[in-house]
């Protein structure tokens, strides 16, 4: 892969629709995909990658490499919040630092899905177990962050237990959707998948276009909310994903992942959550301010990863792995 291919990858169809959404807001257009369709699209995309991932797992089986990657995924999600929390403590309250730590330790399903579309366009295969890795990476960061918060905030009057937080994280609709679809894909295998493929598989990229169009609109709106954020927040929202991506590529190299798996793993490390984490924080750390952590992940880290990150990470993966 040479640098000109790198440039071409910015011109991925779904990502262009993301741009279009941002431009629509910039020119003050009233364009929007009316709710609840974007909500539904996000469920559809999880369903789509879940059932396909499950079907592929039913063919490949859970080899040794697979469990290695899954353990690595859980480890990364658990560890990232530690180092970020201590950086964040310099500028933010304990609650906000913990919520941000959870945000950057957890993952963004939409970034992951965009990376899938990217790999498909470039005909690079990846394993169905990476979908399981994504599902596994959403919660550990939340748990670590809540533990840190409870350790440092001795006079916490909040009565939500850690158990409650863990239960919540695993019953969140999006998690149930992806894990449920993965399991069903595993059960019905290739034959069962064939019959739903025209909807569950073939629609994937087209629906992703309209979904990213909406995400572009939402991200651009949140960008306006971000005015007050200051340089530290913006730098953090750019440098942390880059650092985590670096660690991701390094680990992928050490653990001999294939190129497709390596990119997916890197993207997971680099991405930040804006769906699962805000839902969990409301209950677990209610004094944290979603007006801080959601715009950072949604309006900076997410567009950065989708537009620049994925093609660059892929370029590095192609060079080093």
């Amino acid at each position: 892969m040479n640098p000109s291919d790198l440039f071409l990858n910015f011109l991925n169809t779904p990502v262009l629709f993301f741009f279009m959404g941002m431009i629509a807001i910039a020119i003050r257009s009233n364009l929007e995909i009316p709710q609840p369709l974007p909500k539904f699209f996000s469920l559809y995309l999880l369903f789509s990658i879940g059932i396909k991932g499950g079907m592929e797992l039913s063919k490949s089986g859970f080899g040794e490499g697979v469990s290695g990657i899954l353990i690595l995924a859980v480890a990364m999600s658990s560890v990232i919040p530690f180092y970020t929390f201590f950086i964040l403590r310099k500028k933010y309250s304990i609650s906000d630092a913990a919520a941000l730590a959870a945000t950057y330790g957890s993952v963004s399903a939409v970034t992951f899905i965009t990376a899938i579309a990217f790999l498909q366009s470039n005909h690079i295969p990846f394993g169905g177990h990476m979908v399981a890795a994504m599902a596994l990476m959403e919660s550990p960061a939340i748990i670590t962050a809540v533990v840190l918060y409870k350790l440092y905030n001795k006079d916490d009057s909040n009565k939500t237990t850690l158990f409650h937080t863990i239960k919540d994280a695993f019953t969140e609709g999006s998690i149930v959707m992806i894990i449920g679809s993965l399991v069903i894909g595993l059960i019905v295998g290739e034959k069962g998948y064939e019959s739903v493929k025209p909807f569950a598989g073939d629609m994937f990229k087209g629906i992703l276009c309209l979904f990213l169009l909406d995400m572009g609109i939402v991200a651009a709106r949140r960008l306006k909310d971000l005015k007050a954020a200051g340089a530290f927040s913006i730098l953090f929202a750019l440098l942390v994903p880059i650092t985590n991506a670096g660690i991701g590529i390094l680990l992928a190299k050490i653990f001999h992942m294939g190129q497709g798996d390596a990119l997916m793993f890197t993207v997971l490390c680099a991405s930040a959550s804006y769906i699962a984490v805000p839902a969990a924080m409301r209950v677990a750390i209610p004094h944290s301010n979603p007006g801080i952590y959601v715009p950072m992940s949604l309006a900076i880290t997410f567009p950065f990863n989708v537009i620049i990150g994925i093609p660059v990470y892929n370029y590095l993966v192609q060079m080093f792995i």
Partner: protein
Amino acid sequence: MKNLQKIEVITEKRSIDIVIEMIEKHGVTGYTLIPNVTGKGKRGIKHGDDLNDVFINSMLITVCEETVAEEIVKEIKVFLQDVSGVCFVTDVKYVLH
């Protein structure tokens, strides 16, 4: 006729069930719910355009007797110390059911 009050509670959609439990505990016989409302308050704008239900509110309307209303309002006061939302109480002239 007894003195009747209309209580309107607006809170985040994900917490509205707690409010419903609260009023039901006091024996309130009915309520109406507007599931999706947006709004703005101390905690910023609720656009209602998110992918989860964190940035959207629900609005609960219930009419009940003044004595019951007073007790409910006491509890909602405590509830609103922690949770985003607002509660209005108005006089109702009469109710048909």
